[in-house]
């Protein structure tokens, strides 16, 4: 018995040194990272570390370096830092436009392997240099937190479809769907905005969707869309419709196997109306107008994707599930079968409320 206890104690003491310690005040926690290409085709990266000042304010500390692969980059940066830099607290990763046009497969590899990086880390691209975005000073809570909150609230309540490392990697690794990322643009040193959505084909950025198309894009891609939408009713009357809830369902037509049917259902409220009184009839008109507009715009978007051969909406996944043996039979779906598909969009809009005062 004593011998057994002795063994346990010895094991405990011997094993205890195997775990690497990282005491929070002795480490630098990466909050954001920007990766771009340098002129000589090497990776150029900037790591943002938040330094917490005693008065609760946050100071942005930046480390810049170049390297061949992402790990190399990190190693070079470690040489500049007084404390060990750890990746576990990463909130936002930004890829510059140069690297996203060339392909981000190298940069993304580390994210697939490092268990320390949380899958809820936001990925984004940038228009222009990625490093420039991190060079700004946004708000007192630090750039990392600022950018994360910027993306988070736009995803939750506005027009950016849900995306994070987990979702991106799923799309990126799938042969039947293409990935997309929100694109950030630095306006000046203190402002940054979401300027659109980067569409990827495999690991290369193909196209950027402009801001005003993002509402339709979210309707097509995501389950919930909380966008605001302006409906013009003629006679200088406009109504602002806020979508509370939206649903989309992709089906394959039973008669024609190369036709995809998209059912979009929007539940919305009228938040603003420039006319006199919002009656039931006008609400019906608003519903119809909005549905018409959504139909037309979405179809335009889909056609555009089809031309470019990218499929961020995931028609491929539906197509695959409805065709027996598709995984074996169909090779290079985006180039072949996708181009021959036709689409039909049915939008239904319900205006459930038109304001408190009648």
């Amino acid at each position, binding site marked *: 018995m004593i011998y057994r206890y002795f063994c346990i104690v010895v094991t405990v003491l011997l094993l205890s040194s195997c775990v690497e*310690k*990282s*005491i*929070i005040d002795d480490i630098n926690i990466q909050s954001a990272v920007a990766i771009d290409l340098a002129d000589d085709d090497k990776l150029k990266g900037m790591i943002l570390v*938040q330094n*917490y000042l005693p008065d*609760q304010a946050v100071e942005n500390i930046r480390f810049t370096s170049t390297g061949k692969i992402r790990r190399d980059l990190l190693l070079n940066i470690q040489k500049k830092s007084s404390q060990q830099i750890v990746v576990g*607290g990463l909130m936002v990763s930004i890829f510059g436009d140069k690297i996203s046009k060339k392909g981000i497969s190298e940069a993304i590899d580390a994210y697939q392997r490092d268990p*320390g990086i949380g899958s809820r880390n936001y990925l984004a691209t940038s228009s222009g240099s990625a490093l420039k975005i991190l060079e700004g000073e946004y708000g007192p809570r630090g750039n990392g937190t600022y950018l994360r909150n910027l993306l988070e609230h736009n995803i939750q309540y506005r027009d950016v479809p849900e995306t994070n490392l987990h979702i991106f990697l799923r799309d990126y690794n799938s042969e039947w769907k293409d990935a997309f990322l929100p694109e950030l643009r630095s306006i000046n040193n203190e402002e940054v905005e979401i300027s659109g959505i980067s569409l990827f084909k495999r690991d290369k950025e193909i196209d950027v969707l402009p801001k005003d198309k993002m509402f339709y894009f979210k309707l097509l891609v995501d389950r919930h869309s909380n966008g605001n939408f302006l409906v013009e009713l003629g006679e200088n009357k406009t109504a602002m419709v806020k979508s509370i809830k939206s649903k989309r369902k992709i089906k394959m037509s039973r008669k024609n196997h190369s036709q995809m049917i998209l059912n979009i259902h929007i539940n919305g409220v009228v938040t603003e109306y420039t006319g006199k009184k919002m009656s039931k009839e006008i609400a019906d008109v608003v519903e119809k107008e909005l549905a018409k507009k959504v139909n037309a715009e979405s179809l335009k978007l889909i056609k555009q994707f089809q031309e470019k051969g990218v499929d961020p909406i995931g028609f491929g996944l539906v197509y695959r599930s409805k065709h027996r043996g598709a995984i074996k039979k169909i090779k290079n779906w985006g180039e072949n079968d996708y181009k021959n598909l036709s689409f039909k969009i049915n939008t239904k809009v319900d205006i459930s409320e038109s304001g408190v005062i009648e």
Partner: protein
Amino acid sequence: MKRWLNKKQNDSKQSKENWEKALEKSNDFTQSTYINQKSNVPFCLTFMSTLVDEQIIQQGVLPYLLEGELNKLEDIKKIVPSADVEISTDHTVIDKKILNGYILLTIDTEPEHFAFIATQKEIVRSLSPPEIEFSVIGPKEAFVESLGQNLNLIRKRLPVKELIIEEYTLGSLSQTKVAVLYMHGITNEENVNTVKQRINEVHFDAITDSSYIVQLICDNSNSPFPQLLDTERPDRVSGILAEGKIAIVVDGSPHVLITPTTLIEFFSSFEDYFLNWILSSFFRLIRVGAVLFSLLITPIYVAVLSYHYELIPRDLLGTLVASRRQIPLPPILEALFLELTIELLREAGARLPTKVGQTIGIVGGIVIGTASVEAGLTSNVLLIIVALAALASFTTPVYKMGNTIRLLRFPFLLAAELWGLLGIVFAFCIMLTHLIRLTSMGRPFLEPIYPPRVTDLKDSFIRLPFRFQSKRPMLLRTEKRERFSKKKAKIKKDIDEE
């Protein structure tokens, strides 16, 4: 020791005054001879003056002995108005009787006969409200240090013939009276026999409190968990006896033991039964949560700060880092420092008189706490955590369980320092294994979690209303499972409803 006593008693057969020689050495040994006024028979009274009540002798014994018709020893039964008068020929019991507060009466004409008259001095503290298990609602009586008084308090609440009281005398020197209480026809015989057997097997010289009995008869004396519940509330004891458990009352101890018990019972206060079931269930859950919090929060702090910075919420990170920046100690030393400070405060508070104790609490809590944060020895976040953990550990209604939790925190801290969260899980597994193996009088201690008995959950983490409590706990294997008829209990009519 006992053998030696026996030997001495055997010797005394040869020289019967042996006991006298031994007792004479004490100053309180009194022996005096009187002469009966009617029959002129001289008689001798022997007693220990510290054990007898002088008033009883002067008013209730001596006048009758002096004035009554005393010719032979048998006569005292007629003339002394006392219920406890005994005449014996066995001189081996003399010293025992004298030392129990009897007076020995001898007459020269009958040297082989001894009469004993009970004149014990009973010093009983008056009843006071319970101090440890105080409850705002409900009875305010607590047990005192006298066995007779305590048994009276219990009997009064269960005036039925089924309540059996069996008395034992334990401790070769202390001769402590121990009573085992159970309900005949309800309590499982096997449980009763186990308790009796354990009590009979106690070999110890001086038993001064019921805590001795706990340690002497418990199943695993190497466990930090108390395996017998102790209470100072007579209402709790009677309630639990009715449930089919066994109570052990020890003379000289205001705490009565209850067995077999379960871990969950240590988190139930008897006040739970006085409150509505919804409220009491909520409070019980809070208590269990508080204990887990108290046990785990400091280890989690150490583990997360040393190993798992990823787990810290982003918005908290700034606060934590800023509060730890100036601190020279690693998290474990910081935590140990504060935990030990709290332990010191508790120990000091417990040893000091009440008034000074309060002052120490304030000094420790406010001065040491804030000063150590200002001096940069500990972070203020940890100070809050440790104080909260200490507060949470006081929510256990049974004081002994609070002590256990106080101790258990340290192995958890050590495991957290060595292995982080994995270590905490490891330590928790060890604790759980230990608890699963633990028994109380042969009944599983972790019931109804393990072995899982769903019906017993009705009075564990939550307390269901009384109409659901128609069956006694399965744990006790009682001889009568049903407490009351569920059918009859259902009827709830208005008076005008026929």
